[in-house]
């Protein structure tokens, strides 16, 4: 009898990646002047990207570094766990939102963006992204113990 080992297609990271990508595309469609977004893991690796131009890997790495400093700054000020970080440059914004326990949503926007709207939409999106990532990391044990289906 031949056995084929195969990960269950309806679970695991590929499915989550697709869901994250969908979430990022929806965010860009809903907020005008938003130029792109990246979901970064806390260690600075890219989990999902929706960038027309630019380097997602670099953005994710910088996100991890900036959030690391911001976490300490918030903690040092006695303001508790970090929620978000807004960087306002002369020609645009970079906003980072904590997404669950292990990820960050980083959003790039043009200078003319409606920041109120950016916050409203991105906070909602980061909540959904956080739940997706948290569930995926909880449900995906070590590779050898992946749930297999026999045929």
């Amino acid at each position, binding site marked *: 009898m031949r056995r084929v080992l195969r990960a269950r297609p309806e679970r695991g990271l590929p499915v989550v990646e697709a869901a994250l990508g969908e979430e990022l595309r929806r965010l860009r469609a809903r907020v005008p002047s938003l130029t792109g977004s990246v979901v970064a893991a806390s260690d600075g690796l890219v989990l999902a990207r929706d960038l027309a131009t630019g380097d997602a890997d670099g953005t994710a790495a910088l996100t991890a570094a900036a959030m690391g400093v911001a976490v300490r700054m918030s903690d040092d000020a006695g303001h508790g766990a970090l929620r978000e970080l807004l960087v306002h440059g002369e020609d645009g914004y970079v906003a980072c939102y904590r997404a669950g326990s292990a990820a960050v949503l980083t959003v790039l926007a043009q200078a003319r963006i409606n920041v*109120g*709207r950016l916050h*409203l939409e991105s906070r909602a999106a980061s909540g959904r992204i956080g739940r997706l990532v948290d569930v995926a990391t909880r449900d995906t044990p070590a590779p050898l113990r992946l749930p297999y289906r026999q045929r």
Partner: protein
Amino acid sequence: MANVEAALKEAMTGIEGSLGVALVDYTSGMALGTVGGGKDLDLTVAAAGNTDVVRAKVRTMEMLGLKDEIEDILISLDTQYHLIRLMKARGSKGLFLYLALDKTRANLAMARHQLRSIEGDLEI
């Protein structure tokens, strides 16, 4: 001259039928202050949404070639009036007052008049 908090409170208590009032920066879409509102009227959402309304009207006037300025914008719903009044004073350009009124209790002409005088007294 009144500060932001006092002006918003005056709009909320002095204008008959007020449901909520906010002072909004439409360059960023964020509220500088809000009074009233609640679960039926989230003023943070209203600030961001009405920023798009104001920006759209400003853009439309540019496209029409109108060398004029918006004094106020009235939106009539089935049960509410929403009044947007752009700040004119020097130093408060780029801001608007947003007032939501209960249509059954409000007197629109009076509300508009009161909001104009509150805007004139407001010091940023």
